[in-house]
């Protein structure tokens, strides 16, 4: 490359100037760069002879300069990154804070310019993160690490890098596992949590780090790990919500572009804003990539739960009550979700179930979470009994009784066998309580048992539906799992059959009309005709199917393809299943009616793939039949038990005026839209033309008003027309 002429022999006097020149034309300024690199080296040596204390401003400047231009001369500056890294990792505790900051910045810059790989950067920074005593440095490094990991995972997951970093973090956590004093794992936990929250990491390896952390002896590290499992998914959702708020304000950008000086830069900014908006809109409709909850990604939940229980909850452990509760929550959550058996947990919980216990609702929640249908009833029975004895008796406060009844209900909803009839009947006596909470809780219990075991209730409590249903209900027995059935499937089937009937009837009518009136409405019939022929074809095929269906090679596959396609649209749905069920009807004709119905149901689910449209219809039909209402909300072990559900409705009571006002204002939050807008401005702005006109001195507007009166008829007409037009337009827009 030809050396460029320097404009008027500019004397190089400062680094920014040289940096600018080098950026434009690296080969021509090689000599100057070499000189400066040597200067850097000498400055570095000077600095190294006394690294403590002094701010080394010139050195910091040189480092900044070097990191900016080093990518232009990769052959000359091989040592530079390792120099910086060495300097930082050796002396980070004695360096001046400004220089330290500069060094980290430069390393990140080098990474962004792709001079050093991510692994080098992270391997330099992560040890410093745990070792340094400076808070500012930690924050800087923390944000540098997270942003680097986010960037390198932005387009596609960088598995290799993730693996390395995760291994390093795992090592950090594991190193301080048995040492109650070491907090080295704390930063690993924080980093992992952040990256999980941002969906950068979502694999089992990440969960493994957190699992290790929650088994740490240090209560802080342990707490971090456990909180991750308990709360990170909610965090993630909140994070997404807040991300949405950060969208660009296109209206504002457009307005700015309109009033400010028009430059190329501004134009580009606007274009960029548009592009971003488009992208955001596109992304909004995109389905989320599959995200397994951290609890589901655990390799060995049983082992984990046992380790948690035995490590953190022996009798002589010195954890505080909050920490114990955390451990209990996670353990019970695991037990409930994966249906584990940690039998020691129940007797441990038993001790805390007294009304005087602090945070007793949390313990009740834990009890409920830990109970599932595979826990032996004789383990759960004492818990229910103790709750009933301690909480639900004469002479306790209404709130206590509410909490007890609700707690029992939540346990029994998950493990109904924990209850016996006499106790239940005692408890249901409270349905006549004067306190609303107690009454509701008792009714909830009745409602639950109507569904699961009405025979345990008193006769008058059973209700009509449950009593009628009792005949064909088997008694509850431990260890027998209900077969998976899709509720309301028979309704769907029935509906489909009806639809078919209607279709057939319509087709028959048309055919009949055809026969009568001849073919004089051919155009209109063309499509109908096709369909009816189709139908008849199906009918023919149905008859033949038993003997010849299998012989037709390959055609069955085509038909099944067809079916999936069809069932996406509404009218198409009914074509296929009716045929299949017909066949089944024919097969099972000889057997009993009940059995036939049973088989009927199972074949619909097994012979056909139910589409989302089918499920939507199913839900619709179920609601129509009132089944949903009868069944109440389905209980799954996926979610944590809500503590509010156990507390019951809280009475506000006669608190002081301030508290009442606060409650009132709370109710009014988010309703600004409905209030008066008078005197409120959305954002600061200068006075509008309207405001100016309103404030203008009357004398000054007088002449203009006079002018209005002097308008000619034509003029007046035109003005009025224009006004009407404008009104219409504005109405349409608003």
């Amino acid at each position: 490359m030809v050396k460029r002429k320097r404009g008027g022999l500019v004397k190089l006097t400062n680094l920014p100037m040289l940096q600018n020149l080098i950026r434009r034309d690296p080969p021509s300024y090689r000599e100057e760069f070499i000189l400066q690199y040597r200067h850097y080296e000498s400055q570095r040596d000077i600095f190294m002879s006394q690294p403590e204390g002094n701010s080394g401003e010139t050195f910091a400047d040189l480092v900044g300069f070097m990191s900016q231009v080093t990518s232009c001369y990769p052959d000359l500056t091989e040592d530079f990154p390792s120099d910086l890294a060495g300097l930082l990792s050796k002396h980070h505790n004695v360096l001046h804070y400004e220089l330290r900051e500069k060094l980290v910045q430069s390393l990140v810059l080098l990474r962004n310019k792709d001079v050093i790989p991510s692994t080098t950067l992270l391997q330099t920074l992560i040890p410093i993160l745990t070792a340094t005593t400076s808070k500012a440095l930690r924050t800087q490094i923390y944000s540098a690490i997270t942003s680097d990991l986010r960037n390198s995972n932005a387009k596609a997951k960088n598995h290799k890098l993730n693996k390395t970093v995760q291994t390093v973090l795992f090592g950090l956590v594991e190193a301080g596992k048995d040492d109650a004093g070491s907090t080295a794992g704390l930063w690993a936990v924080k980093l992992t949590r952040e990256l999980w929250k941002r969906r950068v990491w979502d694999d089992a390896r990440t969960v493994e780090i957190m699992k290790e952390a929650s088994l740490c002896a240090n209560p802080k590290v342990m707490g971090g790990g456990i909180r991750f499992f308990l709360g990170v998914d909610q965090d993630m959702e909140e994070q997404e919500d807040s991300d949405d708020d950060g969208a660009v304000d296109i209206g504002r950008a457009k307005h700015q572009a309109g009033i400010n000086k028009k430059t190329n830069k501004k134009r580009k900014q606007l274009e960029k804003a548009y592009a971003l908006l488009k992208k955001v809109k596109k992304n909004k409709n995109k389905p989320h990539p599959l995200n397994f909850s951290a609890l589901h990604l655990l390799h060995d939940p049983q082992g984990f739960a046992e380790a948690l229980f035995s490590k953190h909850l022996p009798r002589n452990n010195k954890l505080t009550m909050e920490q114990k509760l955390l451990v209990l929550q996670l353990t019970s959550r695991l037990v409930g979700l994966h249906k584990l058996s940690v039998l020691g947990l129940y007797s441990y919980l038993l001790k805390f179930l007294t009304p005087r216990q602090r945070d007793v609702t949390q313990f009740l929640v834990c009890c409920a979470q830990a109970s599932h249908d595979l826990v032996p009833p004789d383990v759960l029975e004492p818990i229910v009994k103790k709750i009933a004895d301690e909480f639900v008796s004469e002479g306790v406060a209404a709130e206590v009784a509410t909490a007890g009844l609700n707690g029992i209900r939540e346990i029994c909803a998950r493990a109904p066998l924990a209850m016996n009839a006499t106790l239940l009947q005692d408890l249901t006596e409270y349905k006549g309580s004067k306190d609303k909470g107690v009454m509701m809780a008792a009714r909830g219990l009745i409602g639950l048992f109507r569904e699961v075991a009405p025979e345990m209730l008193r006769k008058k409590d059973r209700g009509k539906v449950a009593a009628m249903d009792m005949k064909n209900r088997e008694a509850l027995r431990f260890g027998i799992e209900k077969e998976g059935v899709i509720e309301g499937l028979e309704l769907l089937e029935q509906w489909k059959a009806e639809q078919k009937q209607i279709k057939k009837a319509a087709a028959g009518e048309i055919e009949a009309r055809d026969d009568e009136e001849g073919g004089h409405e051919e155009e209109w019939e063309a499509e109908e005709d096709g369909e009816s022929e189709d139908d008849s074809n199906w009918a023919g095929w149905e008859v033949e199917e038993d003997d010849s269906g299998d012989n037709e090679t390959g055609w069955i596959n085509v038909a099944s393809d067809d079916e999936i396609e069809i069932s996406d649209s509404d009218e198409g749905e009914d074509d296929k299943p009716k045929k299949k069920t017909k066949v089944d009807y024919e097969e099972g004709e000889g057997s009993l009616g009940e059995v036939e119905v049973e088989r009927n149901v199972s074949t619909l689910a097994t012979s056909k793939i139910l589409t989302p449209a089918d499920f939507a219809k199913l839900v619709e039909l179920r609601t129509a039949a009132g089944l949903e209402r009868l069944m109440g909300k389905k209980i799954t072990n996926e979610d944590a038990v809500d503590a509010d559900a156990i507390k019951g409705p809280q009475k506000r009571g006669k608190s002081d005026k301030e508290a009442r006002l606060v409650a009132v204002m709370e109710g009014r939050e988010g309703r600004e839209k409905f209030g008066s807008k008078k005197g409120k401005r959305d954002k600061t702005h200068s006075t509008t033309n309207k405001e100016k006109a309103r404030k203008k001195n009357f004398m000054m507007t007088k002449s203009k008003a006079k002018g209005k009166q002097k308008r000619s008829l034509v003029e007046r007409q035109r003005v009025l027309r224009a006004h009407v037009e404008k009104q219409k337009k504005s109405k349409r827009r608003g």
Partner: protein
Amino acid sequence: MGSSAKRKREKQRDFQKPKLKVGKARAKADNFTNTSFRSKAITLPTQSLHTTAPSTASSFTHHLSLLTHHSATTRRESLSYLKTHLPAALSVTASTTPNAISNLPTISSLISSLLPLILDPSASVRTQLLTLLVHLPHTHLVLHTRKILLFVNSAMTHISSDIRMDSTKFLDWLLGASGEELFSAGGWGVCLRGLCGCLGFGGTAGEGSSVIVPKVQDGKAALPHLAVLTKVLEAGMVDRQDVEGEVGAGDRRRRPDGLHASYEVHKLPSRSNVYASLGLFGTLGGVYRGGVLQEADPEDRDSRIRYLIGGPGRGMFDSLVLGLERLKKGGGEMGRAAGKALVVLEAADREGGSC
């Protein structure tokens, strides 16, 4: 309007005569000061009065601290104060008591606060510093040559050409102060490279073709550089004993003091930190390059010559020779100076080639 009327009234008020009333004290003026109090003593908390002047030691530390002042004039003034008072004070106490007891600044603290001024942006400060350094006693300076060389090298590569220009003056002073001991603690290669840079002989990276000869108007600037280069080369590579004449040439087996001829080899080393190149205690640079030991800096005359002729400094040697020859061809004062330097280099080349 309303507001303007109000303002008018306010303006008017300044010119109204205050009404005086019989039997009432006059209104006090705005700048009235109450002087009615009495006191036995007046204390001024901010002023400190000494019967004696500040001690010389404290004034030295004060002026040393002023060396980092942001104003160039202050820095220069402090330097000139130090120049006039420090050498005398040092020469009085140095022989009798150690500096630590006499409260005078130690040489190391003095050096560490003075040296950064080699890179000072102001020319007057630099010249003042040079005069101060010249006036300082040269004792114990040898211990600090390494550090001084670092700063001189830094100045030789500085982005500002003025500082680069002055850098060789400091090098010249250092040569005068420590003589041939200068490069015994390393810094030979770096120093030569710096001088090459000052003279504009490029191609340190081995491409001898890209030698830039300084232009004619740079001649004045290059002349002192050339002189210093010659001195450096002499200090580094010319054998003192050669200059003084052969001492023990006649009887190699026996020395005049009756010791064995190879005594020098086996005696305890006279230099400090002989095994610095092994990096046992961490190099001064402190940074290892990928686990590889740094190239040992040549410490005695032979290794210096070897470094230049057959070692890693060969490219530098070539560019030096090439550049000097060009200058010599150019003739004039520059040519003569270049010739002198060239003579030393050629002698070294002969010696290096022979051994």
